[in-house]
């Protein structure tokens, strides 16, 4: 039975993930210009692509960017998502309505969300924040340039995180709803207050869920692409570049420069680096949040 149940999934994996990623992994050690060029033994350059990457300022900047996104964004999103999830499962009214609205930004296409933030929220002449601060007579704040190069990164991060909270909240909620009611009843009978119930009943139960959220957040961060493009639509900026944006330019060529320098080998190398990051995080979370079976 085990084989019958497991095989279809593993087949999918082998064809669509294992073979292509192994081939891309191999590609990363060769000098390859176009994506469809064959791999010639004569073009083997060992760690040459990696060496070049780690000495390229723009690539290092992109790594620094996703590092900040992963940490600051991750903390913010997880805390808010958990807070919402707990609140919504503690007997609030109109839960379904709130849940739908909080998840809504995640459903709306990123292009629309990004445009909303840039053209409405952050606009320095007619935008939401500008009008808000103007009514409060805080003129300096109302003239703040949210999309100026000094603040572009944080503006982008806030906009991105806003849309992500709903997704992680849903994952937390579906896990919290699975906690058998007896646990809470038993705790209540023993006189536990809300905080104590949260820390001793809810949180331990969420270990597997926290791990899922952490891994998914890492995956999204590594695949950060569209928002970087939205906040710097025509060409790369230090504030918004993520490794995938940089890789896209390496593989398909920048749209505006006259001499398009394509380097698919480097692109493949970036992909490999990203994969390694995710593997590390997965292994670490495996160690930290061990999934013991809950005892009944």
């Amino acid at each position, binding site marked *: 039975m085990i084989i019958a149940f497991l095989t279809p999934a593993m087949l999918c994996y082998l064809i669509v993930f294992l073979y292509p990623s192994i081939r891309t992994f191999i590609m990363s050690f060769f000098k390859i210009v176009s994506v469809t060029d064959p791999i010639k033994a004569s073009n083997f350059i060992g760690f040459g692509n990696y060496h070049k990457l780690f000495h390229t300022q723009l690539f290092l900047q992109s790594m620094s960017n996703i590092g900040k996104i992963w940490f600051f964004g991750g903390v913010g999103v997880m805390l808010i998502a958990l807070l919402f999830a707990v609140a919504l499962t503690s007997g609030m009214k109109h839960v379904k309505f709130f849940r739908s609205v909080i998840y809504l930004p995640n459903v709306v296409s990123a292009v*629309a969300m990004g445009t909303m933030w840039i053209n409405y929220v952050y606009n320095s002449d007619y935008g939401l924040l500008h009008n808000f601060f103007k009514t409060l007579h805080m003129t300096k704040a109302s003239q703040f340039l949210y999309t100026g190069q000094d603040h572009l990164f944080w503006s982008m991060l806030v906009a991105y995180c806003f849309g992500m909270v709903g997704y992680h909240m849903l994952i937390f909620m579906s896990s919290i709803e699975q906690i058998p009611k007896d646990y809470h009843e038993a705790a209540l009978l023993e006189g536990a207050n809300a905080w104590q119930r949260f820390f001793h009943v809810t949180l331990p139960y969420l270990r597997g869920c926290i791990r899922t959220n952490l891994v998914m957040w890492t995956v999204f961060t*590594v695949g950060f692409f569209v928002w970087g493009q939205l906040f710097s639509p025509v060409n790369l900026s230090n504030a918004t570049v993520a490794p995938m944006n940089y890789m896209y330019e390496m593989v398909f060529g920048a749209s505006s420069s006259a001499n398009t320098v394509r380097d698919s080998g480097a692109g493949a190398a970036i992909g490999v680096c990203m994969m390694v990051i995710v593997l590390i995080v997965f292994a670490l979370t495996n160690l930290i949040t061990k999934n013991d079976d809950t005892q009944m």
Partner: protein
Amino acid sequence: MKKKQINLEHTNQKKLIPAYIFIGLWVVFTFMLIGWVVFASFSTSNEIFSDHMFRFETGFHIENYAKAWKTQKVSVFFMNSLLYTVVSCSAIILISAPAAYVLSRFAFKGNNISQMLLASALGIPVIMIIMPLFGIVSKLHLTNNRWLLMFLYIAMNVPFTVFYLLAFFKSLSVTYEEAAYIDGCSPMGTFWKIMLPLVQPGIVTVTIFNFITIWNEYFMSLIFANKQNVRPVAVGLYNMIQAMRYTGDWGGMFASVVIVFLPTFILYIFLSDRIIAGVTAGAIKG
């Protein structure tokens, strides 16, 4: 017992007031954002970039929607997307749930490795596998083939679904299987009849995610669905959005945007009604 519970309800609501405020603000902000897009979809470009967008001085421009719907074959895209998403989501569950079940309950030789491999699939960006995939597909002359497209959608989402359902299966008690075994149910039967229904909340949630992911999927569709008649909604409409951005038809662009996100949102509202909270512990106790 009842008295105590009623008291608890009262104090609960009071304690939750800060939550109401915070969530309330969040909700209001979300409405302002989405509302702006909807308003913009009825406006002209000039109005959008001015101080007086909400006054609709030149009226409601419904023609933005008509233009967005007619100029490209949006109905074709819609039917394609519907087909791809429904078929793929069903197949994903059929493939992933059994795999998640055996990985979570049974200790066998390849278990850990399989889990690590599937998890690693999550960290592989699409752009990383697209190149060799394109190579194989071209050689087999399968570009623009609907079934290939669906296979790709399914395969892309199986790892995440397995991983997600794994946590749910792990949290189920072994007593279910023990009881079923005593009743003479086969292992496979146990799975289909008893264990699978128990993780229904998880299945519903992950199907929603998959639906939205496949509906909004862009990269694969762009590369493997070049012909208009097999194109899903995402590529067709996104291209329209890009085009309208450059020509400055922002009203039309926002109308397209609303057309793109509406189905996923409506679906979400309907499906979320069916999420059953928790397992009736009473089934075992009683």
